[in-house]
């Protein structure tokens, strides 16, 4: 089948140099762009589960300091005593770090691949028909959310930016942090970026995973839009609730 044949005309220039040898299938799958998009979709789904649970947990702030701190404390003893204290929490943390790592690694490698595929851009302006703002800004909203994540950890987990940060005093730390308008602004902007990221990602993952059927295709966009609005909308409301005194200490 691979016999040498004479080709008419100029040959096509190879753009990427991917090794095609017999390797274990997960390695082979990861080396392909479609495989990386699967990884992006699966890790993206896992991270969507995380942001949703995180948002639902945060609703406890409306029930007052006691409820909120009890919820925060309970995360340490999930499935205790079957699993030692902090055990489940650390499993979640390791899982999230792995998912973030894979999501970012595949995004980075695919972006490099796409830049190589069009070294010379169009010299006149493009007129996009289908590619919406969310789809075209995925890289930027992703970077914003990634940087914000680091800021968020430094602010409310490690307490770097709060002089009167008290470890395990979750409710007061939260209110003290978000009552500073510049910090609240960071939370609001970053969560709008998260919403835009989810609007495309929540739809795109279905395509990447090959989940396509006339039965539910109409619901895919609605799911992505609804998910983005609910998660990002509530996350934006939290700092506003603190600033306006709905939540206070």
């Amino acid at each position, binding site marked *: 089948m691979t016999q040498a044949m004479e080709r008419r005309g100029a040959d096509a220039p190879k753009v990427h140099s991917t090794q095609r040898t017999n390797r274990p299938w997960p390695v082979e799958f990861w080396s392909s762009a479609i495989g990386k998009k699967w990884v992006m979709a699966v890790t993206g789904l896992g991270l969507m589960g995380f942001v949703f649970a995180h948002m639902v947990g945060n609703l406890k702030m409306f029930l007052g300091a006691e409820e909120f701190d009890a919820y925060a404390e309970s995360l340490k003893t999930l499935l205790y005593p079957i699993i030692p204290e902090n055990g489940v929490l650390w499993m979640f943390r390791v899982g999230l770090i792995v998912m973030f790592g894979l999501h970012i690694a595949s995004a980075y490698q695919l972006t490099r691949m*796409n830049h190589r595929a069009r070294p010379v851009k169009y010299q006149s302006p493009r007129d996009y028909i289908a590619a919406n703002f969310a789809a075209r800004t995925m890289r930027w909203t992703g970077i914003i959310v990634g940087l914000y994540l680091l800021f968020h950890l430094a602010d409310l987990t490690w307490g770097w930016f709060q002089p009167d940060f008290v470890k395990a005093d979750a409710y007061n730390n939260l209110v003290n942090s978000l009552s500073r308008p510049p910090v609240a602004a960071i939370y609001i902007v970053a969560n709008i970026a998260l919403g835009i990221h989810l609007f495309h990602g929540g739809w795109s993952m279905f395509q990447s995973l*090959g989940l396509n059927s006339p039965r539910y295709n109409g619901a895919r966009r609605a799911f992505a839009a609804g998910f983005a609005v609910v998660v990002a909308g509530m996350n934006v409301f939290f700092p506003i609730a603190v600033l306006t005194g709905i939540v206070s200490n």
Partner: protein
Amino acid sequence: MTKMLNLKLKVWRQDGPDDAGHFEDYSTTVADDASFLEMLDYVNEQLIADNREPIAFDHDCREGICGSCGLMINGQAHGPQKGTATCQLHMRKFNDGDHITIEPWRAAAFPIIKDLAVNRAAFDRIIESGGYITVNTGAAQDANETPVPKEAADAAMDAAACIGCGACVAACPNSAANLFTSAKIQHLNLLPQGQAERFGRTKAMVETMEDYFGSCTNYGECQEACPKEISVDFIAMMNRDYAKSMIVNRRRLGERKVG
């Protein structure tokens, strides 16, 4: 009534693959019932009369089925009319006094040959790697010997409508060829005759595609640009078949391992 249109053109001129290239301005007057390529023919006739080099562009059947033509017109692959190849685009879609910018397809895998003509041999490499069925042809069998459900036949036909013009690659911000490749895979994978080689075909064609083109990020621009209106649904089907090919590839079934 035929209307005459005065147009200002901005056309990409490039002497060869290694030339830097630049835009050149032309003005022309054409009837609105001319096709887009006929408009370029008028411009070229004028250029030849002036003893200047005519604009090189690909074209063949001029009835929208060969896939030879393809121009980036005002930032849209094949121009403003949906489901239409450049040759079937007519000047009545434009207005008197319009400025029209014409560029070639741009992708690393589609090097410019001259002016607006690009080399699309990368598509041939993808087809060579699996876009066919290997059949031992015996005596001709009766028609309808192999039952095919109507829905499968229709879907396969929708995919088979691909003319390989490259508009999907041109329109894609990533220069991905997933719409082309998925159409060429699925028009076979949807039919009984395509099943025997289904996963080997999918794997081989996807891997060849990825040697040349970018990756799909589900923008959906390809489906809008496609003159045959091929759906991105086929890309999802390809993604599923590619993942399955990791496990159910029959290519090496004949190999026996001893011990």
